[in-house]
């Protein structure tokens, strides 16, 4: 009876071991990584490189590293060791975190804001310079008011 209990205990430990390892494994996915790294030959993010043989090799390499229980950061570091920092698609991924990495986000935002403000300003000015006859409903109301005033003046 005691021997059977020990056997059951050993079996439970052996069966539970892979699950424990899997739980400790920092799981990431190919889809999660391929948008953050480049296909160096194609010059596009790996996720957009569909037919390039080099991209297929890179994906296979990432999948091998995922199966090897590597974390996302470790996989990106391994890719940078193979292809250099240019393989990292996100600014700041190279680890230097310089001013350029901040400006990559700031400049487009400022550009879009300036363009929107410029267009709004141009539209307001354009509407302001148009004559009353060009102003649709407002122009019509103005003409009606003037007609009424004239009719009153001439007692018609």
């Amino acid at each position, binding site marked *: 009876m005691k021997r059977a209990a020990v056997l059951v205990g050993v079996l439970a430990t052996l069966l539970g071991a892979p699950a424990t390892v899997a739980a400790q494994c920092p799981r990431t996915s190919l889809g999660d990584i391929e948008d953050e790294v480049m296909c160096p*030959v194609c010059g596009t993010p790996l996720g957009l490189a569909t037919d390039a043989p080099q991209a*297929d090799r890179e994906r296979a390499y990432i999948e091998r590293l995922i199966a090897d229980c590597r974390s996302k950061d470790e996989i990106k570091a391994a890719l940078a060791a193979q292809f250099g920092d240019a393989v990292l698609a996100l600014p700041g991924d190279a680890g230097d975190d310089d001013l350029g990495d901040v400006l990559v986000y700031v400049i487009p935002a400022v550009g879009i804001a300036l363009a929107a403000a410029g267009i709004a300003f141009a539209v307001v000015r*354009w509407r302001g310079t148009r004559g009353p006859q060009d102003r649709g409903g407002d122009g019509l109301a103005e003409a009606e008011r003037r007609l009424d005033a004239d009719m009153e003046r001439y007692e018609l």
Partner: protein
Amino acid sequence: MRRVLAPVPIAVICAILALVGLLAYGLAANEPDRKVEESLARGDLQPAPPLELPRLSGVGTESLEDYRGKVVLLNFWASWCKPCREESPLLDRWHQRMRRGGGMVIGVDTLDLVEDARDFIREYELSYPMLRDGEGASRERFGIIGFPETFVIDRRGRIAAVRRGPVDDAFMRSQVARLLRKRS
């Protein structure tokens, strides 16, 4: 007339012009560099760009300068490139021939995974020296746009011929054999 010169049409015209300009710049920037071919067509052999890279084995570096005085066939390849598979056995045969005449083939594994490149070399039993350019930094210097590409460098370190695409026996006979016969 006033409508045409209004700010909104002007802004639209400017935006269209900016897009056209951007497109033109993109096309011009992606134009392949053909300085080597132009020099060769003029008969003006230019010095090969400097090249110093780590060995694919991972031990030490080698420089193109180290091979001055030899005829060098510098072959840029990658294990994922299908035409590279076709030309590799031919390159190895020619490496053996060139060694006897004071020359050699040097392979530059470019934008490739080290393990894949080593498997490739084992599979094709390649015996010539292999350098590694994982980042592909030498592509710009040599104007490389695809793989494989091969540069024939004479004993004085000048580019004597170039092949964009796989080499064949006729190219080797016409471009390499004649340089091997020259002693300087």
